[in-house]
């Protein structure tokens, strides 16, 4: 506008002093197109709406197709509209999606682009920047931005087949060897009656058929109520392998949770780390529940959690949470190192009726000594630092 103003001003003066129709009409025309262009630009921007359609959760390796719909909701056409959608570098080959389009009255246009997540996380897609201007370029461009959307990429889940988690919770649905956990609903056979057998165990039909007293044999079973305790306190990991160790810890947590849920058992999770979505940055505590829906909630949290330096020490956190856990719960503690304080806390847990399994995802110097100490307390301990190490549970 400033380029044309001197000309307009001269026109105005000439028009007033010469009283010439032509000059005055020109003056009106030139200022009119400026204001009309500005008004059109502002109205266009207000009339544009957009919508992203995509699956907001994905596993590693899955392609996520994002469909972007841009619509002009007014009768006034949009001369040009530049779309610029920012994409996280972890998801797309290009840092952004951009187009320049023109929209007629009430016109909609659709665009698609694909995201290829290769790292777990909680990613922001967008915001979508919209910019436009007037046809003559007399005024500056105007822009606005839409709200971003988010994509959750779950961590890698390694399929496990045999995870021998100890449990003291009776009357479950998993077979067990301890006869103390006999389940009267699970009859596995019959034998002859011997003195001392309870009459309630007599199978009268089999007795009638055999002509002598027969008693039922019950299969032992346990319930496996599991609580995964994932420690992401940076002080508990070796600084050289901190990143890999914590990421692998998350993979282990996801894999164990998936296995337990697959066995139709209850699984819960506590994370001693940071959650960017929480205002206090504390991940939510997820109590033990069954079902795939609950598993997805666990995976949602595992997708987001991050290492932190502000977490409580693991033994302290463990002692805080123990009081809330029911008897017979199996704790699966995933951390980077084991010290005396942790072992003491685990011992307290055992005395409270809980079972524990300790999984160390960071290389621990003198691991054998640690194993002896832990097994002395009656727990299982594993040192797993990479995915192939999980093969022990895949045989």
């Amino acid at each position: 506008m400033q380029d044309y103003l001197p000309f307009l001003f001269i026109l105005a003066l000439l028009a007033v002093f010469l009283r010439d129709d032509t000059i005055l009409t020109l003056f009106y025309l030139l200022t009119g197109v400026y204001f009309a262009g500005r008004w059109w630009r502002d109205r266009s921007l207000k009339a544009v709406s957009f919508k992203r359609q995509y699956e907001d959760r994905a596993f590693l390796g899955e392609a996520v197709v994002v469909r972007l719909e841009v619509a002009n909701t007014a009768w006034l056409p949009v001369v040009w509209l530049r779309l610029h959608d920012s994409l996280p570098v972890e998801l797309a080959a290009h840092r952004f999606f951009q187009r320049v389009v023109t929209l007629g009255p009430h016109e909609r246009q659709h665009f698609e682009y694909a995201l290829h997540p290769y790292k777990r996380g909680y990613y922001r897609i967008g915001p979508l920047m919209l910019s436009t201007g007037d046809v003559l370029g007399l005024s500056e461009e105007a822009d606005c931005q839409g709200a971003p959307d988010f994509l959750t990429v779950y961590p890698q889940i390694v399929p496990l087949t045999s995870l021998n988690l100890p449990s003291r919770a009776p009357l479950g649905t998993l077979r067990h060897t301890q006869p103390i956990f006999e389940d009267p609903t699970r009859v596995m056979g019959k034998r002859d009656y011997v003195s001392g057998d309870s009459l309630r165990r007599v199978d009268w039909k089999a007795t009638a058929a055999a002509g002598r007293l027969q008693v039922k044999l019950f299969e032992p079973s346990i319930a496996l109520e599991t609580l995964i305790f994932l420690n992401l306190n940076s002080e508990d990991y070796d600084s050289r392998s901190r990143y890999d160790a914590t990421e692998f810890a998350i993979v282990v947590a996801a894999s164990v949770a998936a296995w337990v849920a697959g066995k139709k058992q209850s699984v819960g999770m506590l994370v001693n780390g940071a959650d960017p979505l929480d205002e206090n940055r504390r991940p939510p505590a997820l109590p033990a529940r069954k079902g795939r829906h609950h598993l997805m909630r666990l995976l949602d949290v595992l997708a987001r959690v991050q290492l932190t330096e502000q977490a409580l020490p693991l033994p302290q956190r463990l002692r805080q949470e123990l009081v809330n856990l029911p008897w017979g719960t199996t704790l699966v503690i995933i951390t980077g190192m084991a010290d005396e304080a942790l072992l003491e806390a685990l011992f307290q847990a055992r005395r409270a009726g809980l079972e524990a399994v300790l999984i160390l995802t960071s290389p621990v110097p003198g691991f054998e000594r640690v194993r002896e100490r832990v097994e002395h307390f009656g727990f299982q301990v594993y040192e797993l630092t990479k995915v192939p190490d999980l093969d022990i549970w895949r045989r």
Partner: protein
Amino acid sequence: MSQDVQPASSSVNERLSAVVSSGIVAVMMTCAAIVVLHLGQRLVPTWNGAYLAGAFFLVALESVISTRLGHKLELSVWPWAAYRATELILLLAALKLFLYTHSGLAQLLADLPRWQQDLNTFFEGEYLFAGVLLILCWVESWMFAQTLLEMESPAIPLEREALMEGGRQAARRRLASHVFILGAVLVMAAGILRSNLNLVGITSPALQVSLVTVLLYFVLGLILLSQGHLAVLRAVWSLEQVEISRNMALRWTMYSIAMLLVVGLAVSLLPTRYSLGLLGVLSYLINAIMFAAFYCIMFFTTLLAVLWAWLTSLLGIREQTPPVPSVAPTAIPPQAMPPAVAPVPWLDALKSLFFWAVFLGVLGYSLYYYASQRKEVMALLRRLPFWRWLARGWRALWSSVKGLNQSLVSAVQAGLRRLRATGGDAPWQYLNVRRLSPRERVRFFYLALLRRAGESGLPRRPDETPYEYESDLAVALPEADPEVAALTDAYIEARYSQHAISAHLAGTVRKQWERLRRALRQRQPKA
């Protein structure tokens, strides 16, 4: 449905832009040439050069096309100079032949021997004028085309990006300068054509040059600027590797033309004539305001005088003075018009007022916007001594206007609230009972019973059920006990049942209600 898009280097958009731009330049040059031809006609009234307009259109178009072709061939300096020189010579020769198509082949045969004797006769008056105009038209078209080519350059290596970016913007500014400088020349030429030039010795009458020619030039110039803006944007998008819609160029052209047409239509309705100067309008306004103020003062003074006279008559005081003759308000003299100017009727004054309001509004906002874009200008203005006084005065005026507006709005809203408050149970709240359904009628009559009974000193407690209330009413109105019971039963049925309520029941309930109303009227309210 996915929109087809193409990389920015697509030739579709660029070809269309090139074609449109070339055509626009040619027509613009033609408009300019027409105005100059009219100027020539004003200087030599016997000459009519209108037939040359078409020729200049072709010359302009040829110049643009030739410039683009030369750019494509990428000629070096000398071959290029020779190319353009020969082109110009051929055009001038063609112009000479074209002139003879107007004057006739016989004239050509007659002139040929004269050229042999004196070559200067080749360049006689009309041809000289037309030749100079042709050269100007050709050169100007060439410059326009060159500038457009600079803006349309395809994507370039990144190391030259910054240089080229500045070059494109500078080319766009040059294009705007070309358009407006040439436009200013045309406007002045048109002004000269319409003026009386006796003072400079030109006695030929003024020519009414068509407004359309000059306006068409500017409209096309704006479209060209729009195309230039598109070219710059396209280059920027190309550098940033942004995909562009295939139909961008076509829609851009259509929308810019449409906008200019709409604005042109709106502009054609704005007033361009006024009979009063600005000061004349202002003095007329001031006179009108003073006149209104005088009448208001006279009215209130008269009212006070009448009131005083009435009061004194009540007190028995009779003034002996004769009645004051009524004084007609002194008419405000018409505004001081310059001599020999007839008094202006009110309609003319209104038109002038409207014109000045629009004109000053547009001008004022433009100046404000210009100043707001130039921070240094605003800083300079703020340093001026009267600026603060002016700004304070403006703020005071604006706040008083806002305050007045708010007071007005509050007063109106308060008045409306008072009206609604007095409404409440106002009798003018009319409900047509006949239009209600039977179920609604039954409920209406029961609620009317509650209201009337409450007014009669038998209100229903909020915790009372209809049957409990029936018992209370039966005690207070034993003579109306059957009606109360029947009305209560009907209400319960209408209120809580799902089946249809008959009109007969509603009619029966109405009669019961009327009897109850009479009973309540006769009852005295409890103290």
